[in-house]
């Protein structure tokens, strides 16, 4: 049990020298923050895209499974979703680069042609589709089953009496869900989203495989050079085995760890606060 605490201490000891390495290890950036800021940006950007796409869809699926669909659809679908939550990320990456990215290219062309005045779709369009938007969408598909599984669990736990009371007062089904199910499930939904966010932030392989990184900070979602993420950067750089580079990588890992830690901590805090409110 003491080893658990050891992890953090060890990582800090190994990582801290990375903050103060000589300039050559930072690939042109002056200091550590110059090196890590665009990685951090890429991480957050990809995770944000993933969340924006995945959250409404996940709640939609969860609602269908828990309240809309008849039993003979809901059962198998729930099982398949649970199963997809266990599919290894490297398989998602393989699927993303082989099938999904090429399919996205015409859509990017269309977006560029019609919405090119938005900074997001400025172009020029990446001809193979390995953009940060693709990476974000693959991440969205990956975190979809997790968010769905947890929120379905909370939705089904809503007391049946509350639901029936709402219906008996003449509420339509949507009003019943809004008045009885959502308030009850709010903390569970928040923690599901946060868990998905933590997963998306730390995800390595899918991003490393799908994204062609190397760019700086840019909001252009469909270009050829994209900001890469911390985790993917570690996975692609670790082979350069000089101690200096390694320390820098471990330091970026430490930054990533702190970010995910903050996210998890916030989720727990929100959930705990809500529980107290419900108890009162």
């Amino acid at each position, binding site marked *: 049990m003491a080893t658990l605490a050891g992890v953090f201490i060890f990582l800090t000891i190994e990582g801290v020298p990375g903050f103060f390495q000589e300039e050559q290890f930072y690939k042109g950036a002056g200091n550590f923050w110059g090196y890590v800021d665009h990685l951090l940006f890429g991480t957050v950007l990809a995770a944000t895209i993933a969340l924006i796409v995945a959250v409404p869809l996940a*709640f939609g*699926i969860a609602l269908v499974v828990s309240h809309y669909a008849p039993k003979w659809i809901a059962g198998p679908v729930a099982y398949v979703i649970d199963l*997809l939550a*266990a599919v*290894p990320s490297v398989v998602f990456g393989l*699927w993303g680069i082989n099938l999904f990215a090429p399919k996205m290219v015409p859509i990017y062309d269309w977006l560029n042609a019609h919405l090119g005045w938005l900074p997001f779709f400025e172009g020029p369009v990446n001809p193979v589709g390995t953009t940060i938007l693709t990476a974000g969408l693959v991440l969205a598909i990956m975190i979809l089953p997790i968010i769905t599984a947890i929120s379905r669990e909370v939705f089904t736990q809503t007391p049946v009496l509350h639901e029936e009371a709402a219906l008996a007062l003449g509420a339509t089904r949507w009003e019943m869900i809004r008045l009885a199910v959502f308030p009850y499930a709010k903390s569970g939904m928040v923690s599901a989203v946060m868990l998905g966010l933590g997963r998306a932030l730390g995800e390595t*392989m899918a991003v490393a495989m799908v994204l062609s990184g190397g760019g700086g900070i840019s909001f252009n979602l469909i270009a050829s050079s994209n900001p890469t993420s911390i985790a993917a950067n570690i996975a692609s750089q670790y082979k350069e085995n000089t101690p200096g580079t390694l320390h820098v*990588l471990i330091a970026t890992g430490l930054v990533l760890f702190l970010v995910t830690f903050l996210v*998890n*901590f916030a989720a727990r805090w929100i959930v705990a606060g809500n529980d107290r409110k419900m108890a009162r």
Partner: protein
Amino acid sequence: MSTTLKPAPVSVASIPLTHGHLPRGAEILVGVVAAAAAGLFPLLLGWGLVAWVIVSVILFIVGLTVWSAIVETRRSATDRMVTALVWTAFGIALVPLVSLLWTVVSKGVPAINSTFLSYSAFRTSLDQPIGIYHAIVGTLVITLCAVVISVPIGIFAAIYLVEYGKGNRLARGITFLVDVMTGIPSIVAGLFAFSMFTAFFGAGYRAGIGGAVALSLLMIPIVVRSTEEMLRLVPDDLREAAYALGTPKWRTITKVVLRTSLGGIITGVTLATARIIGETAPLLLIAGLTTRTNVNPFEGFMTTLPVFIYSQFQKGTAADFELAWGTALVLVIIVLLLNIVARVIGKIFAPKTGR
């Protein structure tokens, strides 16, 4: 009886007790009309199938909502719109998920044959067929080591949390650490194992055991969590009955508590194993990459199935990708089997605790 009855006031009569309803099968009607209307676009403008589906769904939602708002009330219009939206979300989300499974199966099956499963990727001449035997062995050895490391630690930690340290400061600290570790990104776990083994055994040390340590770091919190849940489910009556018979605490725990919750614990461990068996990133850092079969976790590089997929992906030719898809299928099947086993174990042991 005859004089005082007047006709009802006009204002009351104007509020109907029931409002209009859409005819039965309105959804189907709107759907057909929307599909037909959207079908004009591909005919006139030469749009593709995808655009047709998107346009018809949008038309369907708008059409149904507007019709319902006219005939019925605004509230039922909202209800119908949300129902349509929710089902749409469901449909959109199922497409990539089904596509993923279908791709893995359809591309993976042609790659699998007896050579594929029983040869390693080490070839002595260029035309020799290669397989994933080495990766299967590597996966089994590393996962087994990770299970051996993390199951005792996880279960003992959970026993401490539930049976001994109820609510004291150390237990709360451990719970907090476990919570934090649940959110640890896998690559950070790999970095930790990497830097630890570099510190102890010198630079460039890579072996399966390092991967096992990294994986167990990811596995311990899951095991602690699920075991804790299961132990809490054991009714206090059983414990008190054992104490009343004069049984010492450690014997109560081993003979009563653990035995009652055994099924749940095994299910939790199996699910945790299924979760870590697909991890790539930490093994990429610490376990290395090799083409030969290696069964010794303490010496030499070791390849697992996910790492093999990644390395095939990096080579990038069509033949390499075929191997990668085959490996992906094998991996998914292993995960699937573990999940089913966990469910079956849960089912077998579940009734005992109920009685």
